[in-house]
C-alpha cells in the first residue's frame, strides 16, 4: 500500500498538476494507460467543480489531494473548505439523448462513469470526496 499527498490552490491552472499526480499513481498501481487517463480525467473534473462551483470567485481556497494505491486499486480523496456539496449523490443523467445532448452535467457523468465508488462526507466543516476504482480485467 502506497499513500501520497498533495495540495493545490483553487486555481484552474493547478488542475493539471493534480491530474498528473493521480495518473502516475494509477500507473504505479498497475492500471494501463487509458485507465490511468480516466482517473486523471475524473479527478480533474472534481477539482474543476470545486474551484468553479465550490469556491466560486474565491481563489484563496485550497484542495487537498491524497491518493492510496494497492495493486489494481486506487483511492483518491479530495478535501476542500467550500460550501457543502455532495457530488456522490447528485442526480445525473447517464444516458444523454442524441438529439439533445447535455451541455452541463458532463463533469459529474464522467466522475461517476470512471469511478467504481464515490463517497461524500462533510467532516469538520470540510467537504471530503472519496473515489475508488479497481483495475478492469482486459476486455
Amino acid at each position, binding site marked *: 500500500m502506497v499513500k501520497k499527498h498533495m495540495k493545490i490552490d483553487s486555481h484552474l491552472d493547478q488542475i493539471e498538476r493534480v491530474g498528473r499526480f493521480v495518473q502516475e499513481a494509477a500507473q504505479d498501481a498497475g492500471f494501463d494507460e487509458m485507465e490511468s487517463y480516466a482517473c486523471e480525467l475524473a479527478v480533474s473534473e472534481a477539482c474543476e467543480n470545486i474551484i468553479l462551483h465550490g469556491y466560486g470567485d474565491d481563489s484563496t481556497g485550497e484542495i487537498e489531494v491524497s491518493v492510496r494505491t494497492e495493486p489494481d486499486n486506487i483511492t483518491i480523496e479530495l478535501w476542500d473548505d467550500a460550501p457543502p456539496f455532495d457530488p456522490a449523490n447528485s442526480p445525473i443523467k*447517464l444516458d444523454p439523448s442524441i438529439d439533445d445532448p447535455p*451541455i*452541463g452535467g*458532463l463533469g459529474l457523468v464522467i466522475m461517476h462513469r470512471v469511478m467504481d465508488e464515490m463517497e461524500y462526507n462533510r467532516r469538520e466543516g470540510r467537504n471530503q470526496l472519496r473515489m475508488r476504482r479497481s483495475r478492469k480485467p482486459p476486455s
Partner: protein
Amino acid sequence: MEINIQGYKRVTVVTVTGRVDSVTYSEFENALQAELEQGKVNIALDFSGVEFISSAGLRVLVNARKTVKNAGGRIVIAQPSQQVTETLEIAGLEVLFEQFPDRETAIAAF
C-alpha cells in the same frame, strides 16, 4: 494548446494539440466561432495531438455541433488520440461525432 486552421473548398480542418480543458477551452471555442461566423460549417477536427480533453472541451464540441447542424453543416473528428476517443466514450458522446482514422478520409467525407 495549439490551434492550426487549414481552409479547403468544402471543409475546414482545425488541428488542435495539447490540452483542451477549463484553462484553454475558450481559445478553442473562439477559433471555432471565428470559422462559423465566416460560414464555415463543415469542420474536421484533427485531434491526433490532443493529450487531454475534459468536459470543458466537450461542451465546446457539443455547442459547435449544434450550431453547424442548424446551419446545414457537419463536424467530424479526424484521427482522434486515444485520450479523445476514451473521453468521448466515458461521457457517452461518441455517437455524436463521426470519427475517421486519418485526415484524408475525414476530408474526403465532405
